[in-house]
């Protein structure tokens, strides 16, 4: 995906729209296209900018130049001067005044635009994924060479710890710590397992990492094996990902031929082998203990913990389970060092994050950006703004077990720390951007439908909680809900979160909690007024 040189924001609160903001926005797009700048300039509507003295207002980044009030006939001059010739369009600037705190990021980001930064996707789309030589030409297996010839296992653990790498599967657990647990655990045999059972709705980053750069995962697993003292690895790939499986099988074959896998790798005396295990369609197998059960040929029902897989995992042996994206960071960290890695992202969450952008934006797709980018920036720069005529209502992060983030939180930096403080979850990296036509009851219903189907049924809070929540939401969407339903939903959400055995049940309550926190009025409208404000729910049972 491209990086933009300039970001143009047009104020689009009700008053601005009355004064012609929509026409100004369209004219800017026209002029940008006419001058052939559409590949370099992103234009989007930004909502209320917090001051109404000079609207419609146009803000241009990275200079943070503020123009206003802008009329349609001013646009050709503005675009030509500022975006084409690169100088301030004289006479159009608004008086210097503070913008509201809600868009304070606008001054904080002055002089920079958040750019894509590729670490895990560095080679994806650049190399031929079926050709190991191409990977080697692009510095592939160098980190492994360095590890086996210059480093002791403790050195590897040390560098991963210092890098601050956190698990990218959703929980954000410090990777270095997990590796140390496995390294310290007593056991005759240890395993490294790569969790490629990516099934969070809206997430397909792991598929693209594997399909684009399968060897980086193998290399990372071999390094991990050396660090923790394991000699065997498994990659659990979801059954639906046929191409990813083919690519991995081919990569393993080639790595064996080149001596990167097998016995006595690089004459170091270290042996390592990797097997592929295909899933058969069960979301719950992304939960690490369910995944281990499934590799052992059983139903994918999560185990009771403790003991954790780090001490008793696959066939009762200490096992390291890491997500694909987490592992894909490892070769780069070994090669460039912990310092380098820490220079990317935020101090508490170093590195990059791969996101999938979906929903009612102009451009959907995959991006890799430093930790700490905001939702507003993602929508404006990478989503190229909301689809015409729509405005941003909420984002659903991290697939079904992520949070529902209202528009009022769109300037929160997206990193594990800031999100936890705000009380929402970053999840697995899906950003489902929804506009005003999305009904929160309908959305919650779809999410709970997913959980009730995918719940493995082993523990009661999750099996019964997801079913009951769905039934209640369905009744609200039919217009037959009662006010007591709201209390019940809150209770069910609390109980699922606190009492469920595994992550599925524990996160199934999140969408309910978020809807109650941020959109209670909309749910109450369904119950008290028998009206779906977004006009989505059938409401067929009212009267």
């Amino acid at each position, binding site marked *: 995906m491209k990086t933009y040189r300039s970001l143009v924001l047009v104020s689009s609160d009700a008053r601005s729209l009355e004064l012609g903001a929509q026409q100004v926005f369209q004219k800017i797009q026209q002029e940008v296209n006419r001058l052939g700048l559409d590949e370099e300039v992103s234009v989007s509507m930004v909502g209320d900018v917090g001051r109404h003295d000079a609207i419609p207002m146009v803000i241009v980044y990275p200079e943070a130049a503020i123009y206003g009030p802008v009329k349609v006939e001013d646009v050709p001059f503005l675009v030509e001067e500022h975006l084409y010739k690169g100088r301030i369009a004289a006479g159009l600037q608004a008086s210097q005044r503070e913008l509201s705190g809600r868009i304070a990021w606008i001054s904080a980001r002055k002089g920079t635009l958040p750019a894509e930064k590729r670490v895990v996707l560095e080679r994806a789309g650049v190399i031929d994924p079926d050709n190991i030589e191409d990977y080697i030409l692009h510095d592939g297996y160098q980190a492994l060479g360095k590890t086996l010839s210059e480093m002791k296992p403790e050195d590897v653990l040390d560098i991963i710890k210092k890098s601050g790498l956190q698990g990218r599967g959703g929980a954000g657990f410090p990777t270095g710590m997990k590796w140390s647990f496995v390294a310290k655990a007593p056991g005759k045999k240890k395993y490294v397992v790569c969790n490629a059972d*990516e099934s969070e709705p809206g997430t397909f980053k792991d598929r693209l990492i594997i399909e684009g750069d399968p060897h980086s995962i193998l290399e990372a697993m071999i390094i991990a094996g050396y660090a923790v003292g394991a000699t065997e690895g498994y990659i659990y790939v979801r059954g639906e990902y046929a191409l990813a499986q083919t690519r991995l099988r081919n990569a393993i074959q080639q790595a064996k031929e080149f001596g990167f896998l097998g016995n006595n790798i690089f004459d170091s005396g270290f042996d390592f082998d990797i097997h592929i295990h295909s899933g058969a369609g*069960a979301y719950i197998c992304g939960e690490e203990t369910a995944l281990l059960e499934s590799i*052992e040929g059983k139903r994918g029902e999560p185990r009771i913990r403790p003991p954790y897989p780090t001490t008793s995992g696959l066939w009762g042996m200490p096992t390291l389970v890491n997500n694909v994206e987490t592992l894909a960071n490892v070769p780069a960290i070994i090669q460039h060092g912990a310092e380098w890695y820490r220079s990317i992202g935020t101090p508490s969450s170093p590195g990059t994050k791969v996101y999938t952008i979906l929903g009612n934006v102009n451009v959907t797709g995959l991006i890799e950006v430093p930790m700490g980018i905001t939702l507003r920036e993602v929508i404006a720069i990478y989503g190229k703004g909301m689809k015409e005529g729509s405005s941003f209502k909420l984002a659903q992060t991290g697939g*079904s077990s992520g949070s529902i983030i209202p528009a009022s939180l769109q300037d929160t930096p997206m990193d594990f720390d800031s999100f936890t403080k705000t009380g929402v979850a970053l999840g697995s990296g899906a950003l489902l951007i929804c506009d005003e036509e999305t009904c929160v009851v309908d959305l919650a219903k779809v999410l709970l439908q997913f959980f009730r189907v995918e719940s*493995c049924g082993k523990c009661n809070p999750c099996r019964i909680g997801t079913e009951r929540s769905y039934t209640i939401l369905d009744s609200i969407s039919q217009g037959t809900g009662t006010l007591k339903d709201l209390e019940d939903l809150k209770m069910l959400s609390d109980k699922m979160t606190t009492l469920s055995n595994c992550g599925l049940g524990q996160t199934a309550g999140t969408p309910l909690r978020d809807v109650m926190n941020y959109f209670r009025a909309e749910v109450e409208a369904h119950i008290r007024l028998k009206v779906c404000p977004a006009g989505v729910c059938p409401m067929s049972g009212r009267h």
Partner: protein
Amino acid sequence: MVLGATHRSDIEEVVNEVVQQYGSSRDELIPILNEINRKVGFLPNGVLEMVSKQLKLPQSKVLSVATFYQMLSTKPRGRHVIQFCESAPCHVAGGRQVWERLQEELNIKAGETTEDGKWSLITVSCLGVCGVGPVVVIDEDLYGNVTPDQLPEILSHYS
């Protein structure tokens, strides 16, 4: 590719071949069932019995695994299986309208098979191709950015 499920000897041959390919260890139960399901179209009782004998596992264990995973089916399915993604990303991209039209066109509901045995309609969770939602998968063909009006044409490709 899909065999008539009635010929026991054919099925036995498939089971033997697959078990030989993967080895008769319990760890291989899921890959074995997956492969047989792909070759036979579903997992009839006879198959579960044969697999349980070859892997020296109680039949109840084999059945419990066969009914747990969504890609395995213990019921016969139609000649063509339509998988419709009902997860949120496809839903907000217009999936709801596609789903309603799909049920109208086929005149069946989720989990059902048409009387002539041509179509089976199942709902699935996210297939990981959300960039082009709504998504419909027929057998092994994937259709993205589907609109309700495209459905009759898409369905007409299958006999």
